[in-house]
């Protein structure tokens, strides 16, 4: 049985980063875009925990707590703005947000 090395964690987090970025750029539904942003931040968290374990110190884990708090705050503000928008426009699709162009 092979052991799990830090490199494996890095690969997982890199994959999550790519999926998250593609999600932000390609998906239409804004709720899904917000979820993709969470994926990016979770990629960061996996990285930090893996490195924290590698270096045998807790700084990285402390960083994770801050990233989690920020992720929650971002989701809260994002959904709040989305609700305000939905009340005015009745849509959560990104390609129908076309009032502001050029």
């Amino acid at each position, binding site marked *: 049985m092979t052991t799990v090395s830090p490199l494996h964690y890095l690969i997982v987090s890199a994959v999550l980063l790519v999926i998250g970025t593609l999600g932000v750029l390609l998906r239409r539904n804004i709720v899904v875009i917000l979820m993709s942003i969470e994926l990016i931040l979770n990629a960061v968290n996996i990285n930090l925990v893996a490195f924290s374990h590698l270096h045998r110190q807790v700084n990285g884990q402390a960083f994770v707590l801050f990233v989690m708090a920020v992720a929650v705050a971002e989701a809260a503000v994002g959904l709040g703005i989305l609700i305000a928008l939905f009340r*005015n426009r009745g849509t959560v699709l990104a390609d129908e947000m076309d009032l502001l162009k*050029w």
Partner: protein
Amino acid sequence: MAPFSYNATDHLALLPPILMALFACAIMLLDVLSPSAESSRRGTVFFSLLGMTFVAYSLALQIRAVTHAPGFAIPAFQGSLIIDALSLFTNGLVWFSTVILLLCAYRYLEIAHEHRSEFYALAFFAECGMYFMAGAVDLIALFVGLETSALAFYILVGFTRANRQSNEAALKYLLLGAMASGFVAYGFSVLYGISGSTQLSEVSKAVVRRGSADPFVILAVVTIAVGLLFKIAGVPFHTWAPDAYDGAPTPVTAHIAVASKVAGFAVLIRLLLGSLASARPIWAPILAVTAVASLTVGSIAALTQDRLKRFFAYSSIAHAGYILLGFLADSDDGRRGILIYVFIYALMNLGAFAFLISLRRPGSAADRHTPGDLIGDLRGLSKRHPLQAALFVVLLLSLSGLPPTAGFLAKYFIFIALINTGHITLAVIAAAYVAVSLYFYFRLVREMYLLEPRPAEQHTVEPLASSLGIRLALGTTAGLTLLIGLYPEPLLRLAFLVTGGVP
């Protein structure tokens, strides 16, 4: 690791953000406690200006302490915060921008029927975040600072809730801004991985040790550079900027264009010219491409705009391009050029946006073109409001970089630095875009001075929604722009002081 302690130095470093946060909370409480809406409004404005006075005092205390400190820098909190010339320079500009925001916001929010005290509280929270962006020398503190200010800005952009453009702008800003923060955080996590520490001094050593061909260093530097270029709206990461600028309430637009960008450049200086300086071969090409692209897209798109705020969004993208060129000139001249440009950029843009706020007049909220939004609304302004028009012309001259004003100085130092470090091609390209910018800024002058107002419009363009605060803001910024152009000595000395102190 030293046991946690809290001493006088830490207190000095933390005093301004503590004051900002306390005043933000106090303003929200005040709103609940005050008897009538009218007294709440007045109380909020008075209280926020009082808060800014206290913050100014605490920054003055820091300045006094720094002048006696060895190396013009005071580290605090076991080296996660620093008070130095760069942090004070940035905080001073952010403070000024916040004061202008507070002065201009009252009339604007009244016209929009959205005068709520959270606006002022959020302005304080944003300033609090930017304080940490300017002074943090630790990855965690830096990230938290970036996010605190960004979250406050997302809400401020969407502050006029009933306005669809404002909603949409806030959402676009939030989605792209959050993705950019994610990239920055990812880069930080990799930096932590290669150095085993969150302190920038340790990170710097690790980056030097690994060299600039190491894949982890490349990954970290590229993600951080991309994330931060989003924040300062460099092309091709600028797509949020025109929308957010256009949809946001104009005082907030001014604050994003100035304070947020100034703080973003402070982080770029601290990271790219400080701890990641040895990774120059990685980030220099990214910045060069972004700078030239920003100049091109900013200048060409500004030519085609007919909405004023969009026009200034693209113009500020072009200005970001000039500032980025300063990073490419690897010399003290370049660093000084960046600081001088940032300072003058802040003045010119605050003035220009204060002028735009004064153009705003009551109109229906659902109307797409509220009077005062279009370049055509400037028509014939010189006849009716000669003084305001003249001050705006001073600012436009400065924005385009003509000699008697400060804008010339800003571009001059960047160009000199580029030529002295052998970046002749870049200097020539940048100079060519100065010519383009002359054309599009003079379009506004032409509207104000040479074109007659269309008879049908005359009644709509009549009164300027000016208030004492707006007049004060416009007068101060235009006056300083002219003064610095004529007597640049103090600003140059300030720039020398700051470049001596960047760790």
